[in-house]
């Protein structure tokens, strides 16, 4: 009996380790599904949200990261503009150093009315192998990952952006075109994991 319990515990640990070591999802592959509670207490399921929207934009965000904060207004404006076209933006805070109350206050301060979730024990960040904030994933209605990367190339000055990568990806997706640049990179703050 004791051995069976140990074996079960070991199997459970292995499962957790496998989850933590999950490889990053590739463009065109199914985006890992997840369920989290929003900061206003609603249940959120990526799979369900994807089915009822033209795209879901999953953004790993932070309250203290200057790179993420440089995009607060752009996140708000893009969410509003593309919301009218059936695209849902959601924010996920996986930082162990940023508690729920801080995430709520940050959302209120920056007019982020899109769903925002705390990611306890950074399980969703691990599922996506998300490394930093802001880091963006776009999921299509069939649940496939279509874009991964940055919002644009100029964190310092929104008025000088020359490569609005997320916007371009959404425009391509909404027009049923191949996304020309489906993977991009930018600097960001490491996600503070447990």
């Amino acid at each position, binding site marked *: 009996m004791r051995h069976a319990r140990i074996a079960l515990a070991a199997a459970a640990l292995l499962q957790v380790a496998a989850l933590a070591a999950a490889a990053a999802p590739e463009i065109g592959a199914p985006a890992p599904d997840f369920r989290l509670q929003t900061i206003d207490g609603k249940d959120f399921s990526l799979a369900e949200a994807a089915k009822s929207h033209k795209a879901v934009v999953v953004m790993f965000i932070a309250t*203290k*990261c*200057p790179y993420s904060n440089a995009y607060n207004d752009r996140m708000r404006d893009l969410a509003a503009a593309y919301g009218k076209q059936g695209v849902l933006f959601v924010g996920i805070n996986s930082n162990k150093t940023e508690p729920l109350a801080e995430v709520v206050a940050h959302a209120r301060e920056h007019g982020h009315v899109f769903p925002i979730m705390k990611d306890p024990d950074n399980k969703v960040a691990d599922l996506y192998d998300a*490394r*930093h904030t802001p*880091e963006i994933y776009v999921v299509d209605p069939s649940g496939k990952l279509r874009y991964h990367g*940055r919002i644009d*190339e100029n*964190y*310092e000055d929104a008025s000088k952006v020359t*490569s609005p990568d997320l916007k371009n990806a959404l425009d391509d997706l909404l027009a049923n075109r191949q996304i020309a640049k489906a993977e*991009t*990179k*930018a*600097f*960001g*703050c*490491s*996600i*503070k994991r447990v």
Partner: protein
Amino acid sequence: MFARGSGFARSRGAACALVLAIATPPSVSRIAGELDAAGLARRLAQEKGRVVLVNFWATWCEPCREEFPSLSRLQKAYGGRGLTVLGVSTDFESQRAGVEKFLAEQRPSFPNYRKASGGDDQSFIDAVDRSWGGELPFSVLYGRDGRKAKILSGKHSYGDFEREVSRLLS
């Protein structure tokens, strides 16, 4: 620091100063210069035959600031055995004064550069390492042969760095 072939280096006093400088790594409390990807490659080539640890950081990055003193300690402990630590700040141009202030406070034992402004960060990130997503801090260890030997993503302890550096120096 010492211009090659200058009369200064030939003087006796300067020779003593040079010996002292090698024995005791100087603190480098100013930005050593700006580097783009090609500049970084050229800088690495200057360290041929040595193990090199390049650390990418930013003043606004808390784990970077926490990690920074370990790198100074590492340079002091292993510089004489063939380690060169190079820091590269990715701070915004507007934060240059903050970088200088941070370096003046830290007085690191290794030179720190600033990533050159302009260009697309993605090109720089990919040139450093394809596996790098842009997260900070981020460190790359190069062996004596100049080849990439280890990637250290995120904040690491002195012990982590020491283990990898010792392995490459042995």
